[in-house]
């Protein structure tokens, strides 16, 4: 009997040791979910009633206004608003005609702490 009780106590201590790992995973999950939040979450947990969480979050896939930025990055911006105020509209053709462009190296993106694109660096050669 005593051995069983000691085993239970040790198991409890071991489970308590999982606490820091669970907390660390939860924090990383929060960081991951903050980038793309679902409009509706539904949870079915063991021994608990079904939970529904509504954020009604909508994300917009907004192309860059500059056509060459579109062409070179080929990725829309993932924004919570329909437009990006820091991306000015293009009112004139960026280059006369349609020159042929080659890209000697890959496009690099500058990301902030939340993984959002804050800058695009592209090296091109116009023939």
């Amino acid at each position, binding site marked *: 009997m005593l051995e069983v009780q000691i085993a*239970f106590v040790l198991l409890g201590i071991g489970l308590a040791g999982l606490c820091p790992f669970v907390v660390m995973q939860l924090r990383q999950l929060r960081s991951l979910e903050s980038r793309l939040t679902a409009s509706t979450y*539904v949870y079915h947990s*063991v021994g608990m009633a079904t939970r529904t969480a509504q954020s009604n979050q909508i994300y917009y896939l907004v192309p860059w206004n500059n056509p060459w930025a579109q062409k070179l990055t080929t*990725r829309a911006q993932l924004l919570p608003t329909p437009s990006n105020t820091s991306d000015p509209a293009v009112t004139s053709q960026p280059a006369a005609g349609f020159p042929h462009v*080659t890209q000697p190296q890959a496009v690099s993106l500058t990301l902030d702490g939340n993984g959002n694109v804050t800058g695009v660096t592209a090296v091109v050669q116009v023939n």
Partner: protein
Amino acid sequence: MYLRSQPSRGPTPRCCGFTITEMVIGTFLMALLAVLLAAAVATFARPAAEVDGRTRLALEASVAAEALARDLGGYLADNSGVPGTLMQYQFSNWIPSSDGTTLVLNYQGTPPAPVSVSVTYQQQNYQLVRILGNSVQTVAVHVTSFNASLCNPDGSPNPVGTCVRIEITLTYPDPSSPRQSNPSFSGTYVLIGVQPPSLPPQ
């Protein structure tokens, strides 16, 4: 005179085993420990399972959004290192199917490629697939619903709207998974594609 022999009054040998009181106390302690253990499992194991499911949903949603963002950026990604001209592989239009289960993105081709290049997104066997020509790529798994429809910029449905509303529902574990026990998690992500701005006149 006869003396009658008396039985010995020395210490009696202890019997093996335990009394009913000891057994009750032992059972009570076992029950207490079991309750504590159950509480510990509920405290740590349940969040761990929840973190697992929610992480899988968040990752799949992220890669699905990235794939859609790449194709809705205004141009179709060409062969690496050869961006070409502004006319090549430019986005033309999007055509959601009437039931919303398929989204076709059309791009302008370039010779000798076909005049128009189409990319199709649809759900197949709880996967979101991207079809370009004969190439079928799995974009995300655990997809239980995919719906695309035209809408206004605020997301309200409009059959002639200028934007496309994409709803992706992810569930872990999905119905095809061998693991069908609780817990299960589901999330619906709403993305609205905005038309790329048209090229200014020269």
